[in-house]
């Protein structure tokens, strides 16, 4: 078991694939990327030591093809696979297939995954480990009648959830029995579509809870530690939008209690590698087990910044059979970190996805700014996958300064050619509710409902020079020697024109 890993295949794409490739390089481990036809020009292909084609763009024909991925791993001599997040990362059968093929799956064992992966199984495990949890049915509901029965026991309002679910799909809040039957059917069909399983269960609905999760690490020698918490209460449609560490509402005592609770669950399932235990925290700071994510999280960087550790390095070392290089008392949180997920979506237009060609990319950098980026200038964002483009993470000694630092970074950042949600982050980071950490999982929906999204270009400053600048810029960009080529996607100019523009660009570049 204790054997160095020499070559890792990364069964993922985008920023997380690049994240893992970077860790491999730093550890002297060869990296292997896989890619779909939509991703031939992606950064994971360019930065890996090796890269192999999986298939057509759709995930079902590429990144979800565990059989193909295993075959490639064996052919190229990879002795481990890192699944990243999403795709196959929580697929116990794939983990088992890796183990059977003698290739290490960088994550928990298939058994641990089965005990904690499905929400209903996880709740049984949690109950066995005596975790506080939201009252509800531990098992999938057989029928509407069954659902009604359980809902009555639990008491309205209740929440319907998909057993195989995640990301809010198959979730429905039900405030009275009258709403139950329709919600039940919708939740089931949505779950069926999203996860191939229509199993749903019922939980008591906690009003305005905070979403706070604990990062744990467990090695193969019985050591398990918690690395503090992440607050992910800023969500839209149950999708995390902003994450931060630490949470503003946890003190050392509560942090220790939640951490120890998370460790208890992991140990009850003989869990190994990195994992995240999600809790709901109510207004009285009671916490309830929500679910466990048996993989690396999108938001892991905020934990890395406040602990000074590298979670992917540690994942790999654990998979190699090494012992954790530290004990619980060696882990100290310092400062505050905030992450913004830059998405290809348009908050001013009903959060429409905006795949397409990136015509200009200006990065944010400097003190306290980390960017885990999956895009580059000239890259075409495919429509086949999650709209995440990049993760901006700000670190500072205090939460207040981390917020100001993130606003500074967003001011430097520019993605040209497609819409992004950058202005949404500005709005949140300036909102009094967020700045006072007065947030819960309903916070963002309320904020968005509050004032209608600002009209494009609407004046927000009474700065006269700013308007003058805008008009002059419009004229100058129009001027031949200031014009720039319009991207092919933005086919709003005849060929002759952008050829000419391009020739002028050459004069300037």
């Amino acid at each position, binding site marked *: 078991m204790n054997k160095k890993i020499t070559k890792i295949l990364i069964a993922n794409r985008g920023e997380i694939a690049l994240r893992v490739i970077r860790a491999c390089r730093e550890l002297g481990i060869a990296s292997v990327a896989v890619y779909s036809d939509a991703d031939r020009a992606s950064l994971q292909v360019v930065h890996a030591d090796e890269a192999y084609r999986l298939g057509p763009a759709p995930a079902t024909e590429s990144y979800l093809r565990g059989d193909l991925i295993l075959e490639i791993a064996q052919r190229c001599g990879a002795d481990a696979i890192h699944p990243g997040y999403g795709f196959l990362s929580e697929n116990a059968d794939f983990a088992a297939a890796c183990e059977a093929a003698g290739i290490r799956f960088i994550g928990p064992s298939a058994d641990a995954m089965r005990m904690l992966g499905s929400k209903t199984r996880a709740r049984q495990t949690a109950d066995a480990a005596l975790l506080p949890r939201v009252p509800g049915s531990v098992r999938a509901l057989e029928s509407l009648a069954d659902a009604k029965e359980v809902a009555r026991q639990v008491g309205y309002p209740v929440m319907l959830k998909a057993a195989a679910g995640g990301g809010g799909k198959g979730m429905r809040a039900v405030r009275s029995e009258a709403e139950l039957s329709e919600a039940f059917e919708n939740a089931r069909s949505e779950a069926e579509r999203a996860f191939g399983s229509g199993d749903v269960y019922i939980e008591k609905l906690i009003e305005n809870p905070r979403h706070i999760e604990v990062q744990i690490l467990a090695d193969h020698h019985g050591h398990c530690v918690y690395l503090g918490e992440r607050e992910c209460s800023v969500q839209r449609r149950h999708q995390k939008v902003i994450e931060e560490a630490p949470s503003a509402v946890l003190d050392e005592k509560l942090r220790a209690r939640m951490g120890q609770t998370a460790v208890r669950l992991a140990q009850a399932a003989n869990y190994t590698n990195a994992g995240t235990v999600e809790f709901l925290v109510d207004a009285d700071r009671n916490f309830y087990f929500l679910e466990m994510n048996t993989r690396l999280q999108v938001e892991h960087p905020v934990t890395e910044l406040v602990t000074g550790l590298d979670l992917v390095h540690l994942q790999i070392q654990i998979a190699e059979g090494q012992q954790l290089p530290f004990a619980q008392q060696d882990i100290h949180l310092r400062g505050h970190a905030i992450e913004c997920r830059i998405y290809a979506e348009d908050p001013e237009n009903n959060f429409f996805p*905006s795949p397409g060609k990136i015509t200009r990319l200006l990065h944010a950098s400097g003190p306290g700014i980390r960017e885990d980026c999956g895009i580059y200038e000239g890259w075409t964002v495919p429509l086949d996958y999650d709209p995440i483009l990049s993760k901006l993470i700000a670190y500072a000694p205090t939460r207040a300064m981390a917020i100001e630092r993130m606003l500074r970074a967003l001011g430097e950042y520019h993605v040209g050619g497609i819409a992004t949600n950058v202005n949404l982050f500005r709005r949140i980071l300036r909102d009094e509710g967020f700045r006072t950490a007065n947030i819960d999982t309903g916070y963002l929906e309320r904020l968005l409902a509050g004032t209608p999204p600002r009209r494009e270009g609407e004046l927000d400053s009474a700065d006269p020079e700013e308007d003058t600048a805008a008009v002059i810029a419009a004229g100058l960009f129009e001027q031949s020697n200031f014009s720039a080529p319009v991207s092919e996607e933005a086919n709003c100019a005849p060929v002759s024109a952008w050829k000419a523009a391009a020739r002028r660009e050459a004069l300037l570049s």
Partner: protein
Amino acid sequence: MNYNIELDGRKHRLSIQPNAEMNGYRFQLDGQSCSADAQLLQPNVLSLLIEGKSFRILFDPRPGGAAIVLGERRIPYRIDDPRSLRSRANVDANDTGARSIIASMPGRIVRILVQAGDHIEAQQGLIVVEAMKMQNELKAPRAGTVTRVAVEVGATVQAGKVLMVIE
């Protein structure tokens, strides 16, 4: 060179004259000469100094039409200038935007909520498109009557495709 620029709902008249000093240009805005120092950093990235104030301004082409980005604002604009191509493009975008429901990105049609002949209210849901694992409901920009539904459920559409026409 003279331009009529409609920006942020206001019409402006801008004249740009070559000039030895001032980094190459002299500007007249709505009849008043204003001193601005313009410097292009990269294609589409402009630095303007006006009365000492510094502005980073970007030209941002998009399928929906080009705009300039100034600080936190993305400002679509129209330029009336016979030689201008961009302005015409914007006009098209606006006009079509007003009459037809357009797919602003590629995707798959999952539901159609109205049919030809239906009277619809502004903001009423018309059609649901799925892309990037998200379903998105297109709403009516204004009240009217559906005169044509140009797609079927299950169809995959490209950006710019007309999905429905309202009058």
